């Protein structure tokens, strides 16, 4: 009997909920083989991955620290992805946001003004929007492919970052190391719990999520974007502007990434340095798709990815796992999840024989 892949009429509800567990089970199975070959303890490893991130207030606060920027950027990217605008340069937009926001504490080293932080948020948003705006302009004016433009702009942003760190913004007391001064307290988000790195920047992604949910599900603007993505012709006949969708998608994503970048330098890092993004710009793409581009799904996806990331860091220490094994584990989890998720929309069906097919047509 041959099998054929067939699209379901409606997505399978039970499978949507079962998929994460299936993915985890397959990953545990496959990575167990890897761990046994390496001679590592299975129990300690899985404990580190899935339990230790919830074990203490500190661990939980670290999960939420990662959750914030992932959620923020993924929600914004998903808006564009639904309109079929492929912005994969969140990384560069984050960097530009971080650079612009850092100009304030770099030039006003002694200021304790309460306007410092709001000004940095605005500059961060502007930095990201400006960088994404370049891609939007080139797309709408010259039809330049936004995938390439946003990706390449990320490399340029990185070089601009290096330029400032090696030159004008280098900490004069920093022994020539490529980094700025440590920012003063007024330029940092206050911590939610004293002594932990989790800070009030978390509020911004949460409000943004609520906004996105209302905008995409309830407002006409969101509907226009989605239609533009699903049926571009229909959108044109209805008079929805395709260029408008490109600008909207890219500027919203740029703003989110820019503020996320600013929140990193004004949060856990506390200065501008070579690595400011922790790869959030790219991880957020995975989060957006893990969450099936749905605002609520993205919340869970961001949380899930944060947990396995923190778990991975812990597995390095407690389970004595090499960092490459951690990456393999995280990769397996994503691959199995995404491939399992296919079955939400598709199913296997026995292929009909030629005779049966003709018969069914006759009927």
């Amino acid at each position, binding site marked *: 009997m041959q099998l054929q892949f067939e699209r379901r009429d409606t997505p399978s509800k*039970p*499978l949507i909920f*079962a998929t994460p*567990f*299936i993915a*985890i*089970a*397959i990953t*545990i199975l496959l990575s167990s083989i890897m761990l046994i070959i390496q001679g590592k303890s*299975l*129990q*300690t490893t*899985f*404990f580190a991955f*899935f*339990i230790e991130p919830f*074990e*203490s207030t*500190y661990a939980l606060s*670290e999960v939420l620290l990662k959750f914030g920027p992932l959620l923020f950027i993924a929600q914004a990217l998903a808006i564009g992805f639904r309109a079929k605008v492929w912005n994969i340069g969140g990384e560069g937009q984050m960097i530009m946001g971080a650079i612009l926001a850092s100009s304030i504490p770099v030039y006003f080293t002694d200021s304790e003004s309460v306007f410092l932080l709001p000004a940095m948020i605005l500059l961060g948003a502007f930095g990201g929007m400006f960088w994404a705006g370049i891609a939007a302009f080139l797309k709408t004016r010259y039809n330049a492919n936004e995938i390439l433009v946003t990706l390449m702009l990320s490399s340029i942003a990185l070089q601009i970052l*290096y330029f400032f760190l*090696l*030159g004008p913004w280098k900490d004069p007391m920093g*022994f*020539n*190391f*490529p980094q700025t001064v*440590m920012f003063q307290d007024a330029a940092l988000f206050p911590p939610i719990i004293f*002594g932990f*790195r989790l800070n009030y920047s978390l509020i911004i992604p949460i409000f943004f999520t609520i906004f996105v949910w209302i905008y995409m599900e309830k407002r006409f603007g969101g509907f226009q974007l989605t239609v533009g993505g699903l049926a571009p012709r229909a959108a044109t006949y209805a008079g929805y502007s395709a260029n408008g969708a490109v600008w909207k998608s890219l500027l919203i994503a740029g703003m989110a990434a820019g503020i996320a970048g600013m929140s*990193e330098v004004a949060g*856990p*890092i*506390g*200065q501008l*340095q*070579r*690595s400011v993004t*922790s790869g959030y710009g790219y991880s957020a793409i995975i989060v957006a798709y893990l969450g099936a581009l749905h605002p609520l799904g993205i919340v869970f996806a961001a949380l899930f990815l944060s947990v396995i990331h*923190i778990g991975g*860091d*812990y597995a*390095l*220490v*407690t389970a*004595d796992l*090499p*960092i490459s094994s951690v990456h393999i584990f995280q990769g397996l989890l994503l691959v199995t999840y995404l491939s399992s998720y296919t079955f939400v929309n598709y199913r296997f069906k026995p292929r009909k024989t030629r005779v049966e097919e003709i018969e069914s047509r006759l009927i």
Partner: protein
Amino acid sequence: MKLSFCAIKKTAFAVVLSTASLGSSANSETLDIGVLLPSPIADVGWSHALVEGFNGVKEKYGDDVKLNIVENIQEGPDADRIMNKMVGDGNKFLLLGSFGYMNSGLKLAKRNPDMSFIHASGYKVGDNFSPFTAKYYEGLYLMGMAAADLTKTKKLGVVGAYAIPELISSINGFALGARAVDPEITIDVIWLNSWFDPAKAQASAKALIANGADVLFSNAQDTPSVVAVGEEAGVYVFNLNSSMSEYAPTKYLGVVKTDWGPFFSASVDAHLNGNFEGRNEWLGVDAGVVVTEEWSSDISSEMVERIKTVEAEISSGARHVYDGPIHNQDGEQMVAVGERLDDGGILGINWHVQGVNTPLPK
């Protein structure tokens, strides 16, 4: 089909739950030493030398100490969490193996006064937080003399990681040593802005050779890439921290080795005796930390004698690499005759001596 999904789901839960009862428990009898490293330990290089430095400690205390190593961790926000976890898991003595771990490490040290921290290449000091650096420039001065003996083009090349004082002072030491033998020698430098970038290191080494350099100095690159290129192109080459002679069997000039053993042992002893004190540990030839060895047999025997004499003088304190007169790249006199650049001047040095062609990145 549905049934089997449920079965898988149940197994997944079961595995997760069964592991939940097992935590890691730290044994209070043994001293847990945490080691955080920026690059893979590998067989050679910086991280390798740091881990080797604990051999003496392991020999002395046997099962009473346990080394918990986490390698290849990028300097950045994630390193902070891993450090915290190492502390939470009961490590009482922490070695932080890279400059970029400084600010997070210092915060952690303040929160854990019962712990002791040693931190490589930094400059901030805490009550229980000691930065440590090797006086590489002392070994480099000797290497410069050897390079001067062998160069024909009178051009030396350096592939450097970051333009920080530690590396700048190494290059200056190299230039001063070489030009003490032959003042016509000049030095070119290519900065990579990375501790670990084999591809770029190789390309840079080839560029330096194309430019005429016939002795190469791999300055703080944690891979044998530059060394291998030197052997291939037939130019002399040397590196820091640990021997890479097997990658250049015929063209290896020697190694400026760091033997952290004496310092690590003293620090662990101090921690166990409860009298660890944070201070800037700056260790050179006299402390037995900077060791030049594996000299190439091509170096003339007269030069070998001269090098031995100078090494003894540096070790006894009779000679200092930064004794005046020293001029900077523009020919300005920075250290007068009869004077000596003080420690602060070397630790924060941001200028090259005369003879180094490449300007510092600004």
